[in-house]
């Protein structure tokens, strides 16, 4: 019964494809069995919506008259520094960038109300952005100063380029110290006062394709409300981690590097985000379709929160000191119940990733496919798997001579 992506695309074009979300497939497979479900279902859609700091955007502003070269100069967007180490009219802005005059953590915890993630959100929302640039001036690019408003509709290329997104599983954060700490995993109260997690669990893209049998370089995805592609494995892509019997990683493992046209995207799915005491980031909406090419691939998509486990990490000691210890392992079903038992204590839990928005993404992607507006792509190369032998290295510090 094995299907090909080409056959599934043919069905999509004819309006005959059967598409369900990664949440719906659980009940369908339970009722019909995986064999029958794999015959009937063509595509399973996934979704996730959470803060992803390694996100950014690059764009080409068009040239000024007379010409000015950003490259080697200094550029800010709404006072947030952009990277100007490229050619004359190209800029890159990262989600975690902060204005020079932001007080940061001088009064701890800093608020971080506006940064690169917010610039990207406002740009996508069609708001004017204030660009200020200073350059050193050359014979061919004589101009040295620029202050102007820019708007996405007037820019040439506008590209969201996220070098690490959609982590396959992630740390679960707690605090064993006696004071509140402020982290990228949210506010963590003292003495295991709360536990925060950040995954859509059974809806999350890479948890539904644990061995990357369908998701690869070139896979077309829902990105920020538009469509994008998997460009590369995400940085820190690390598939060789402990896994359950069904192959689901119990630690942060794979990640995706994603790219897409910002002009198609929407501020509903790219939200500038402030983590108290930590910094700015961008909350990104991602959805990946999984073509049901075989019963095996279908059975991976039936994974439930009760079958996905993660490690609780102490963000007051082990994490900042790059130590390996864990406080325990819990399932996402337990986490989503609102309370988990750990170290003899009942601890309230909260998520940084929005499950209702993940459901909305998976459902939207499903609608696009059913309506024939979104075709699947054959990956041009696979993501490195467990067999690739990737080992993440810490930074070995060496003193310059």
């Amino acid at each position: 019964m094995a299907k090909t992506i080409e056959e599934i695309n043919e069905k999509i074009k004819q309006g005959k494809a059967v598409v369900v979300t990664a949440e719906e497939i659980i009940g369908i497979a339970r009722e019909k069995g995986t064999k029958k479900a794999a015959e009937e279902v063509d595509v399973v859609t996934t979704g996730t919506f959470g803060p992803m700091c390694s996100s950014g955007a690059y764009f080409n502003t068009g040239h000024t008259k007379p010409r000015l070269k950003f490259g080697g100069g200094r550029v800010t967007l709404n006072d947030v520094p952009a990277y100007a180490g490229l050619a004359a009219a190209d800029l890159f802005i990262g989600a975690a960038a902060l204005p020079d005059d932001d007080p940061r953590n001088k009064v701890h915890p800093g608020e971080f109300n506006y940064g690169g993630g917010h610039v990207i959100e406002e740009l996508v929302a069609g708001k004017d952005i204030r660009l200020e640039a200073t350059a050193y001036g050359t014979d061919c690019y004589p101009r040295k100063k620029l202050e102007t408003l820019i708007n996405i509709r007037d820019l040439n290329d506008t590209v969201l380029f996220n070098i690490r997104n959609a982590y396959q599983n992630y740390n679960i954060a707690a605090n064993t110290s006696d004071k509140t700490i402020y982290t990228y995993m949210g506010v963590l109260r003292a003495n295991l006062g709360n536990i925060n997690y950040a995954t859509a669990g059974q809806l999350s893209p890479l948890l539904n394709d644990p061995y990357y049998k369908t998701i690869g370089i070139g896979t077309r995805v829902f990105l920020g409300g538009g469509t994008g592609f998997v460009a590369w494995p995400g940085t820190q892509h690390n598939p060789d981690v402990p896994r359950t019997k069904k192959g689901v990683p119990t630690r942060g493992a794979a990640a995706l590097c994603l790219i897409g046209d910002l002009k198609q995207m929407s501020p509903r799915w790219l939200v500038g985000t402030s983590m108290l005491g930590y910094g700015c980031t961008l909350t990104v909406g991602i959805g990946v379709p999984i073509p049901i090419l075989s019963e095996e691939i279908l059975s991976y998509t039936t994974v439930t929160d009760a079958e996905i486990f993660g490690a609780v990490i102490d963000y007051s000691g082990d994490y900042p000191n790059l130590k390996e210890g864990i406080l325990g392992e819990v399932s996402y079903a337990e986490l989503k119940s609102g309370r988990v038992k750990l170290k003899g204590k009942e601890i309230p839990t909260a998520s940084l990733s929005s499950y209702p928005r993940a459901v909305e993404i998976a459902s939207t992607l499903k609608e696009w496919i059913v309506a024939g507006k979104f075709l699947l792509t054959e990956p041009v190369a696979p993501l490195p798997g467990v067999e690739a032998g990737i080992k993440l290295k810490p930074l070995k510090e060496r003193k310059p001579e």
Partner: protein
Amino acid sequence: MNVSKRIVLHFPKRMVDRPIVSRLVKDYDLDFNILKALVTPEEEGLLVLELSGEQQEYDKGIRYLTKTGVKIQSLSQDVLRNEERCTHCGACIAICPSGAFELDPVTRRVDFYNEKCVACGLCIKACPPRAMEVHF
């Protein structure tokens, strides 16, 4: 019939040093619990109260406050969630000391019960998309 309401009082500059809340107790037999108080020099005063007592006396007390020139607003009008910005992640739930945020187990959406809110303001900065707003 007894009532208990959470209200926000704004005192004009000229009234900050007058005994006003004490009259609510003496003359109208009302109970109060101060949730938040702010008196800035040269500025107006702000008092967030939980006020309770007999309905008739409560109404009289509120009339008295209005007559003195105090501006009254119910707390639920002042602490708001910007529904456009809220992503229903849940970062506010464990932060709130009064349990004003609850996760709906079916929809997984975060419900905000502003009648439980004590206007402490902890959620304002702990909310990653900055969806919580205080309008005192």
